Every structure is written in structure tokens, then in C-alpha cells.
């Protein structure tokens, strides 16, 4: 079953005279429990794609269906409600609230769902233990490391068991050790909780943790790779190869 279906997505910025088309008709579908990453060079439109899929930004044309709900016709307030209930987010710069402790940050999405305090605590405990951040629950974001911040952010994305989790360069600001820690946890959660994750990254290592990688170029889907039963290392090599074919300044010049 597809949890997310996008058809013919166009997105352009600017006015009538100075129009820049960033997404030029993208079709994609993501199944329940998949861990998918979107790769592409800077300016290829991958973050824009994530933003329109996650309803933070509006599409110019096309349709996005999440969990059977058509997103493009919803009004802003309904979109916000939908995000709040059904989507989870992990951002490159953590996006934790400085004035809240780690635990308060994590429990924030639950506060609107009417979960009892006790149930919320249980959920928190389980998740925080899985992510290894239980000990820092009463610390403020400025008192913990980048890796811990990102795991806190991840916990916040998972706590209300959303239909899809969107991650925008989650490892972008982390050192390689923290990054692999986080990715291990993410794929673990993906398997254990059957959580659907869509991640944007430019880091092939990060992408190699996924089950599928979609390559974007100039606002269009260039190709995609399935990991299948391959080992992570082998999948990593495939990704590198594809990236080599895809990217590179020489190719750009060759087109002119």
C-alpha cells in the first residue's frame, strides 16, 4: 500500500515575467514502512521537493496524496492540522525549542492528541531508551551535543507515530560518528516500528542506509536505486557510481 503518492508535481517561483521552474513534473510513490532517500546536487530541487511533499510549501501544479488524503486542495489551517497529526519532521539544524528541555521538546506533538500523561510518559520512555537519550531528558538543548540534539529531534518526529517522517539533511551538521549513530537508530526505528521515512541528503553514506534512493536532477527524477538484499557497503558503491554519472560539472558543460 502506498502511503504517499505524488503525481506530476510542478513548482515554480517568481512572477509572470521572471519565472523559475524548480520542479518539472515529478511522479513518485512511497510504500508503507519504506525508508527512502532523495539525492541530488545543490539546486537540483530536492529540498523543494521535500517541502512540497510535506505540505510546508505549496505545489504549483500536480497532486500529493498522503494516507489517502489529497493535500493540494486543503486549506492552510487544515494542512497545519494534518501535519500536526500525521507527519513527523527532522531538520538539519535540529529545530528544537531552546526554552524547553529535551523531554518537553519530544512530548510537544503529543500534547494535542489527547494522550494521557501516563501514556505519554510510557511512550517517551520507550522511545528515549531506543534512541539512547533518556539520561538527558531534563537538559536544555544548549546543554547537549549535536548528535544528542538530532536524536532528540528524531524522537520528537517519531513520538506521535506519524504516517510519514520527513528528514531534511538530518546528518548535515553532524560528525561522521554521530551521523552513523543517528542513521543506525533511524533504520532500526524504521524496521521495528514500520515507520515510513523520506530523507533528503547529499551524503551517499547516509543514503546507503535506505532501502531505496531517488536521484533528482534539474527538477526531474533522474533514476532510482533499490537496495534489495545488497549489503550496505555494496549499495553505497552503487550510489557512488550513479552519483558520478549524474553529477559533475563536465556533464553540465557538455550539454551546452
Amino acid at each position, binding site marked *: 500500500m502506498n502511503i504517499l503518492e505524488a503525481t506530476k508535481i510542478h513548482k515554480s517561483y517568481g512572477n509572470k515575467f521572471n519565472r523559475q521552474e524548480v520542479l518539472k513534473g515529478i511522479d513518485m510513490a512511497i510504500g508503507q514502512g519504506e525508508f527512502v532517500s532523495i539525492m541530488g546536487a545543490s539546486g537540483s530541487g530536492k529540498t523543494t521537493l521535500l517541502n512540497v511533499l510535506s505540505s510546508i510549501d505549496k505545489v504549483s501544479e500536480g497532486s500529493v496524496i498522503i494516507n489517502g488524503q489529497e493535500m493540494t486542495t486543503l486549506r*492552510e489551517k487544515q494542512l*497545519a492540522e494534518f*501535519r500536526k497529526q500525521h507527519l513527523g519532521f527532522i531538520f538539519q539544524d535540529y*529545530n528544537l*525549542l531552546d526554552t524547553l528541555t529535551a*523531554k518537553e521538546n519530544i512530548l510537544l506533538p503529543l500534547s*494535542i492528541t489527547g494522550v494521557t*500523561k501516563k501514556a505519554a510518559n510510557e511512550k517517551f520512555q520507550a522511545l528515549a531508551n531506543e534512541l539512547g537519550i533518556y539520561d538527558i531528558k531534563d537538559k536544555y538543548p*544548549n546543554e547537549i551535543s549535536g548528535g544528542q540534539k538530532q536524536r532528540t529531534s528524531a524522537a520528537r518526529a517519531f513520538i506521535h507515530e506519524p504516517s510519514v517522517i520527513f528528514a531534511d539533511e538530518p546528518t548535515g551538521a553532524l560528525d561522521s560518528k554521530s551521523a552513523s549513530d543517528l542513521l543506525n537508530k533511524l533504520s532500526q526505528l524504521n524496521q521495528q516500528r514500520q515507520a515510513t521515512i523520506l530523507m533528503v541528503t547529499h551524503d551517499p553514506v547516509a543514503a546507503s542506509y535506505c532501502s531505496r534512493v531517488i536521484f533528482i536532477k534539474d527538477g526531474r527524477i533522474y533514476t532510482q536505486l533499490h537496495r534489495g538484499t545488497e549489503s550496505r557497503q555494496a549499495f553505497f558503491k552503487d550510489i557512488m557510481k550513479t552519483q558520478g554519472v549524474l553529477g559533475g560539472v563536465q556533464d553540465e558543460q557538455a550539454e551546452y
Partner: protein
Amino acid sequence: MNKLSINYIIARNFRKNIKNYYLYVFALVFSVALYFAFVTLQFDPALEEIKGSIKGEAGIKAGSILLIAIVTIFLLYANKLFIKRRSKEIGLYQLTGLTKQKIFRILSAENSILYCGSLAIGIFVGFSFSRLVAMVLFKITNIKTSTALKFSTSALIQTVIVFLIIFLLILLMNYIFIQRQSILSLFRVQSSTEEKVKRVTLNEMVVGLFGIALILTGYYISTRLFSGHFNSVNQLVLAMITILGSVILGTYLFYRGSVRFIFYLIRRQKGGYLNIREVLSLSSIMFRMKSNAILLTVITTVSALAIGLLSLSYISYYSAEKMAKSDSPADFSIVNAQDAEQFKQSLSGQGIGYKETRIDVIRSIVDLSQIIDISMDSVILKPEQALMSVVSAKDVEDVQLAEDEILLAGFSDTFKSLFSYKGTGSVQFHGLHKTISQQLIGLKKESIVSWPFAYGRMPIAIVSDATFEQLKQDLDPQIQAKFTTYFGIDITNRKQLEEADKIFQTLPPGDERFSNESQLESTNEQKQMMGLIMFIVGFLGLTFLVTSGCILYFKQMDEGEEEKPSFTILRKLGFTQGDLLSGVQIKQLFNFGIPLIIGLSHSYFAVKSGWFFFGTELWTPMFLVMLLYTALYSIFGILSVIYYKKVIRTAL
């Protein structure tokens, strides 16, 4: 860099930033207008009458100095926020290679354009405003003149000089600011004030509790201030200083410790499970309360001061009629038969109907020690041997007394609290030879005779006719007053009152004329005097109000910008604008409400401690002032919410 390009930068900058400036321009125009209006009035010939009548010149001067002080602080604060907002831009200039001197020149040029423009607008607004203000002033002081205000050159010059000096101060401040910053710190300045989140410590709790204790101590002393517990002037002054000190320090410590601590307790009790409203209100206020402590203390003190002063002066104004009534219970009070006769004839001649009250007054030494408890040495009244005026019940309407019963008339609330009235009891009248013991059965607030008969405007004893006759036989001639019979004339037809007043004014001058009293005249005098004081205080109070409201509002604008990233995060997570706004509303309720409530409470105790010196009515005028202040103050809270709404809308 040549001259042309600097000018170009200035011009471009100016056009680009014009939206950012409105806060600053508003502060400027407002200050200038207020000051100019005040000074215009000061120099206006139409005001001579009021000024001359009570030597109000000094009052107006003192007011204008205070006004300058407030305006200076206000403008410097606005400028500080303004330059802080633009620190990034300044950093960029530095990065592109402009020297600090040149940046300072650009800023100064830009500032002076703004400043001159605002000054001109302000003066115009102030002039229009001063006409309105003059009308209000003449209305409350009951003076009838045409309010054709002239544009005063001396007012203009004085305003320009004052604001030029303030401008120099602002330039100095900017210069120091720019000199102190390196490129790096300029980039960081916006977040540098944002304190790192610190944990609530036990220390803070102690500090907070200590603050509350200090405030309560101050309140407690204030309630005992004029109840005879402080016997000398020195002690009184010391007590007042103690109250001021402990309340202000207590307020500061309260903001520094208690608020954070109370919020911390609430938050802990939630066990990490906060909803969006609590996130935006509790945590945000906790986060900033400590660093805002000084600012909030200043605002609270200023509000309390404004409310207190406004209440007191309004109490005086409000009580003017009552005061006049106690000075002269009848429309006209006359102290000798001759004048009374003349006045009555003139009234009859003009066909004005009247009613006469005639009361004989004697003086006696009275022992009041059983009914009042006063221990001040230096006061006019010794409870054991009080010199009092005595009248007979037969001369007073509606009073029936048994032979050993007495009433005290003209016993206002002021006396009640000043003398620590203990309640009814026995009172001894000492004649020349005999002592008569009587029973006090009650008090009358209203006075019976006009002020020259009430010794030192003290209460008067009403005794039964029999007792009165006994006392009259046993008079001590040395203590008797010059006037022994009070003539009260009430005009039957109220419409003829002014006419009667004109006749009254023609009574022969002299000592008697001074002691004769027209209620209408004295009401007007009171209103004129209190009106001017109230006007000056009201003007200052309004300035206090608007400046403190603006400072809080500016502060909130600043906080709003700082919190924008949080709003962005929350909106990405799916919280709607409505969710965020409801949290912000609660936050603003606290941000504006806490200083207001504490300010109201401070002023309540301040007014309560000494209001009886100012008038006869406490609750109505005080509540009116408080209500008005709260309403005006809330406007700034609402404005800040509107501003936040805009920030939230643009956050995603």
C-alpha cells in the same frame, strides 16, 4: 570611498529602512509633541490667571523637568533597541571596509534627517494637541477664557534646545556603541542579550521569597504610617524611605526570583508534558524574566507612581465640593451680625429667597483621651486637654440628645485614622470651675459651623441644651474666640446662587470678610488649585503611562523577532497560527499583566496610607483612575499581540 557614494548609501539606506523606523519615529514624535504642548501651555498668557492664583509656576517648572527626564530615558531606550536591530547592517558595512568613523557619520546623518523630521511633525502635533489640552485644563479649573492659543516662539526655542541636547546624547550613545563593537560582536549582538537557559536554583527561591517578604513589609509599614505609630517627623520620613526602599527592592527581587520560581514549579508539575500554550507562555517568560527584572521594576515603579499621583490629585479634585462644604456648611457662612444683616437685606432687595441658620459657639477644654488614641507630641491636639468648640443641640437640625449625651461633628475619615478613633466613650468638659462628664454617642461627618468657629478645623462637640447652658455659665474667657455666633445663609432657589455670590462679594473687607465664606467661591478655588495640580500630574501620568507602555511594547517587538525561529519550527511541526496566537496572548497577559497588577497593588497601598490628607473620598476616584490606567495600558498589550500576529504569519 568618495563622498558621493557615502551620500548614495545614506539615501538608499534611508529609503530601504523606512519601515523599520516607524517605532523610533513614533517615540520621537510622541515625545516632542508632549513636551511642546506642555511648554506652550507654560508660556501661554491665558494661563497667567491660574498660575498667578496659586503660584503654579513652580509646579509647572517641576513638571517640565520631570517630563524632560522621562522623555530622555524613553528616547535613549528606543534608540538602544533601534541600533541593536541594525547591528547586522552595521557589521556588513564594516565588512565592506567602511571605517567606524564613516559608519558613525552615515548613521548620524540618517539619524539627523529622522530626528529633524520628527521634531517638525512633533511640534506641529504638539501645537494642535496643546489647544485641546488647554481646553481640558480650562474646563477642569472652571476658568472661562477663549482658548485661542498662540504659537509661542519661546516654547519652540525651548523645545528645540531640549531635543538638541537629547540628540547629542543619542549620538554619543551610538558612537560608544559603534566603537565598542567588532565585526564579530556586531553580528552576534542580537543574540547576546539572550541569556543562556539557566536552571532554577534554590538561591533564586530564597531571593524570590525575600522579595515578597520585603514588599509585604513595606505594605505593612504603609498601613501604620499615619496611625500614630511614628511620633516625630524624622521617624515618619525614615518610615517612608523604608517603605519605598523595601517595596522597590522587593519588586526587583520578586521579578528576579519569584516569578521564575513559581513558573518553574508549575512546569515541573507538568512532568515535561506541556501544551502549546504553556510552551509559548510559561517557558518563554521564565526564560526572560530574570534578565528583564530591572526593566520590569522600573516600569512597575513608574506605573505605581503615576497611578498613585493621579489617584491622589483626583481625590483632591473630587473632594473639592465636600471640602468646601466642610469649610462652610451653608451656601454662605458669616461670622458677625453686621455683615449678616447687610447681606440679608441685599438678598431681600434683589428678591432672592434664603434660609438662615444661627448657631452660638463657645469653646471649652475637653478630655478626649478615652475616645482617641494619639501619641504624637507635636500635634495641635492633646487628647487630655483638647480645645474644642461646642454648640447646643437645639441649634442643630435633626439632632436630639439626652442631657449627658454628646455628638462630635465634622469628624471626617481623616480624623478617624489620624487620631486612631477608638469608638464611643466618656468625655469630660472642663469649665472654669467645674467638670462635666458626658457620653459620646456618635460621630457626624458633616460639619455644623464654618471653619473660623472650628478651632483649627477640628471636630466640634454638640451637647444638649442643658449642658450647653451650664458650660456657658462657667466659661473660661481666655480661650473664647473672637466670633461667637455663626450665621449660615442657604439660598432657596439654586439658580440664584451665582447672583447671591456676587452680592456676597460686596461685603465690606477686613478680618470678617476673610472669615466669611462662600461655598461656591471656595469650591471654585479648590477646583482651580487642584485642577492645575491634577492637570500637571495627569500630564506626567499620561507620559509615564505611554512611555512605559511603549517600552514594554518595543521590548515585545524585540522578543517577537527573537522568537520568530521558534514560531517557524512550531509552524513546520503543524501548529496553526491560531494555536501560536493563543499561546502568545497568554504570554502577553502575563508580560503586561504582572507589572500592572503589582503596580496597582503598590499604588493602592501608597494611596491608602495617606489619602485622607488630600480629600474626603477614597474609593470612587481611586477606582476610576485605576480603571482608566488599566484600559489605556491594555492598549499596548493588544498592540503587541497584533505585532506578534504579524510575526507568526510571516514565520513560515
